[in-house]
């Protein structure tokens, strides 16, 4: 672990998050997939499981997923200064862009060139997310646990088909796991 710590750098943290934050639009789960590509696949600062844990924590907490995930990554990479650096990096691009646009938003929103570029970038976002979700999904399948598969399928149906809020799904699973643990503990106590 000590050897790995040397790789963390606040400068790299700042520019990685700044870069991701400047180019990813379309909601919290989009930025999380780009973070996974950067911090798990490229920099190897955290492993895939930890990134998924961060995503669950970021989603279940109040506030924007992108900011929350940056806070978690910041603490991991550089403690308190890391957290501050990560948050500043996450909010600077949207603040600058919105400030610039707020003075001429009608011209921006109805501009044909902007619309064309955004349409294409959306296709790119879809491709990146498909790539990440394929890797993540295959890794869950590889664990060969029918419980985990069942959770994944049920959560997908709840989110995509029934449009249930992501936070509600996460809290439901937490309650289910807790209930399962309590039942197991009670059973152990009775048998032992």
């Amino acid at each position, binding site marked *: 672990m000590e050897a790995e710590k040397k790789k963390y750098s606040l400068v790299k943290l700042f520019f990685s998050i700044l870069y991701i934050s400047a180019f990813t639009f379309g909601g919290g789960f989009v930025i*999380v997939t780009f973070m996974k590509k950067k911090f798990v696949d490229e920099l190897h600062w955290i492993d895939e499981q930890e990134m998924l844990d961060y995503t669950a924590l970021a989603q279940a907490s*109040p506030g924007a997923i992108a900011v929350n995930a940056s*806070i978690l990554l910041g603490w991991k990479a550089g403690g308190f200064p890391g957290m501050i650096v990560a948050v500043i990096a996450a909010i600077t691009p949207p603040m600058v*862009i919105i400030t610039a646009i707020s003075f001429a938003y009608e011209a921006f929103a109805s501009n044909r060139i902007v619309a064309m570029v955004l349409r*294409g970038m959306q*296709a*790119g976002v879809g491709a990146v997310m498909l790539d990440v979700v394929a890797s*993540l*999904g295959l890794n869950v399948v590889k664990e060969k646990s029918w419980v985990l598969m069942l959770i994944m399928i049920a959560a997908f149906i709840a989110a995509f088909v029934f449009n249930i809020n992501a936070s509600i799904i996460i809290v439901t699973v937490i309650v289910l796991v807790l209930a399962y643990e309590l039942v197991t503990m009670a059973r152990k106590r009775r048998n032992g």
Partner: protein
Amino acid sequence: MLLKLFFSFIQVGLFSVGGGYAAIPLIKSSIVDAYGWISMGEFTDLITIAEMTPGPIAVNAATFVGIKVAGVPGAFLATFGCILPSCFLVSFLAYAYRKYHQLALIQNMLSGLRPVVVALIASATLSILQMVAFAGKSISAAHLDWTGIILCLVAFLLIRIKKLNPIAVMVSCGVASLVVHGLFGVPMI
């Protein structure tokens, strides 16, 4: 005024659990309905812009409203207010995670949550792909956007097989779309 702005965005940051679209009704009720800082029309514009630009909707909204109400200092104050609750709460979670994630109970909970997160990302992915394939319109053969579909497929192969940088691929998709629609005049659906 500045204080009111600050505290209403602290509220938004504190109570918008679930990110993005959870924040919209909160912003509307305090910023539009209670204080009248921006009109409903401006609020609709704000949502459009937030969808077209990077960054969380809450941060976009805070900057936008802050500027309208009190210029650039307002933007800073509102944005700072909206991320402050996260900084405290999530920092506490970061600490708790580092300290307790080895516990058996927490381990079981996290391993149960990981497939949920994968499913949630998959659901978001499918929504975006659906938007790309039908150009954000209803699902019907007439709305199939072949430029978008082909771009998305090529981009996917480049990222998956050639392992190209995802942001570079995404920006290239934007340029390619501009060339196809703008230069070659393929009409946008």
